[in-house]
């Protein structure tokens, strides 16, 4: 075969088909079959008729919505103040804000757990509060970074123009800066909301006995119930697809590891 540049992608395409596409196809197959390989919708109907499962779904939505809202309420002022400030080394300050991202999450949550234990005594007493605190502590940098990037790229002339045209500071913020920072907000929301529905290990580490969607996969995995687990994974996948379609702005991609710095 003659060497051409486009052939270089063959190994990666083969890899993606084998280990990204194929696992999802298998997941789909397992979700709609039972132990004997017979087609069944039992896993699907079972989920939507089980009050506990529905309760878990609603609870994870609640945890994810509150966590995302808290992250947004904290991250937006941080990003805004920093982007607008006259500090000389803003890039250093934003780096300090996202640096926790590079410390292993399990060690950070361990630290948080020790502090919360001193403050609250028995952690099991406040499961919802602790879930939100733990997730916010874990995911806050993912909200700060995209919002900061968007605000700091905004053209200052637009704000000045609004002021010149008679808008006061509050109106300028509400009608110019805030709408223009929406792409950053959306990408921050997508970075926080989905992990907050699935990252059950944060809850586990805080001695939380409440379940979110991710915990269901974990418990099916522990019970070797591949069919039930696949159906949960598929439901999560559907939620993720919906969510991605709603918030899509092809921005969030590389921000997970803070590569934009």
């Amino acid at each position, binding site marked *: 075969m003659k060497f051409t540049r486009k052939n*270089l992608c063959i190994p990666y395409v083969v890899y993606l088909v084998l280990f*990204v596409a194929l696992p999802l196809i*298998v997941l789909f197959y397992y979700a709609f079959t039972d132990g004997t390989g017979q087609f069944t919708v039992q896993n699907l109907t079972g989920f939507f008729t089980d009050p506990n499962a529905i309760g878990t779904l609603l609870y994870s939505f609640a945890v994810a919505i509150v966590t995302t809202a808290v992250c947004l309420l904290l991250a937006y002022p941080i990003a805004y103040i920093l982007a607008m400030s006259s500090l000389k080394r803003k890039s250093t300050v934003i780096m300090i804000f996202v640096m926790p991202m*590079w410390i292993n999450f399990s060690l950070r949550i361990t630290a948080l757990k020790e*502090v919360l234990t001193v403050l609250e005594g028995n952690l099991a007493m406040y499961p919802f509060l602790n879930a939100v605190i733990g997730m916010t502590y874990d995911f806050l940098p993912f909200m700060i970074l995209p919002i900061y990037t968007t605000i700091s790229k905004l053209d200052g002339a637009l704000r000045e123009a609004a002021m010149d045209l008679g808008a006061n500071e509050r109106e300028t913020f509400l009608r110019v800066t805030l709408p223009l920072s929406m792409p950053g907000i959306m990408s921050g929301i997508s970075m926080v909301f*989905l992990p907050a529905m*699935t990252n059950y290990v944060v809850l586990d580490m805080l001695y939380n006995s409440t379940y979110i969607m991710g915990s269901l996969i974990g418990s099916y995995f522990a019970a070797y119930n591949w069919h039930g687990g696949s159906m949960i994974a598929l439901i999560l996948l559907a939620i993720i697809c919906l969510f991605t379609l709603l918030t899509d702005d092809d921005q*969030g991609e590389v921000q997970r590891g803070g*590569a934009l*710095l």
Partner: protein
Amino acid sequence: MKKEIGGRIFLCVMLLLLYLPILILAVYSFTDATQIGAIRGFSLHNYVTLFTTPELRDMIIGTLILAFGSAAIATILGTLGAIGSFYSKERVSRVIATLNQIPVVNADVVTGFSICILLVVVLGVSKDTYIPLVIGHVTLCAPFVYLSVMPKIKQMDPSIYEAALDLGATPARALREVVIPQLVPGIVSGFGLAVTLSLDDYFIATYTKPAMFDTISTYVVNATRGSQTTIKTALWALSTVIFLVVIAVVAVMNRRSGKAKEDTSGEQRKAA
């Protein structure tokens, strides 16, 4: 001006909240306390335990080998994939971009579980071979390498490659000596990203790792469930060591990027 000061105070308070738990743990890691609150005296025994317990040492070394190994594989796959995809037909490159996006937006729980089902349940690959674990981590990391290399390819001047061919280089040589050197910044940041993603992963490792192998994340999570105090406080020392390493890396990166900015501004001045 008053507003600015208020803003800065808010930033400081947020930073303090973000770092307080890690700092408290760092202080206590130098004492013989077994829980926060009761300082008894200065002691280095947590650090001695951390560096002399074989179990802990193996776990740390294993995590690092896994991270750098799977990041290396992911970097090769992702970089070649990005180059090839850029020069492929529009339709092909769109399919690659879509497949590439799946692990990026997918929850790690789902990625890990689906890879476990395919490899372990369907194909019967033993987890003890480390194959599912490495494939899981490469799947997690390679898409991010692809995404960091792609913009650099798009920025590249296409006529340079043509010029190399006109001057007699074979396509392979032109690629190796002309194209890839220009992509180095993207490849390096992709590799760095891959290492941090692998280091921070919990879910994919949990679903694919051999029973006797632990990464830092899986080890720490299991340790918080157990009640072994010596191990628990040794992990405080580990947290402090990692914190210091991250500070050092960030400081070096920051100085470098500062320097790079100075260099380019110097060049601009020269050009003017």
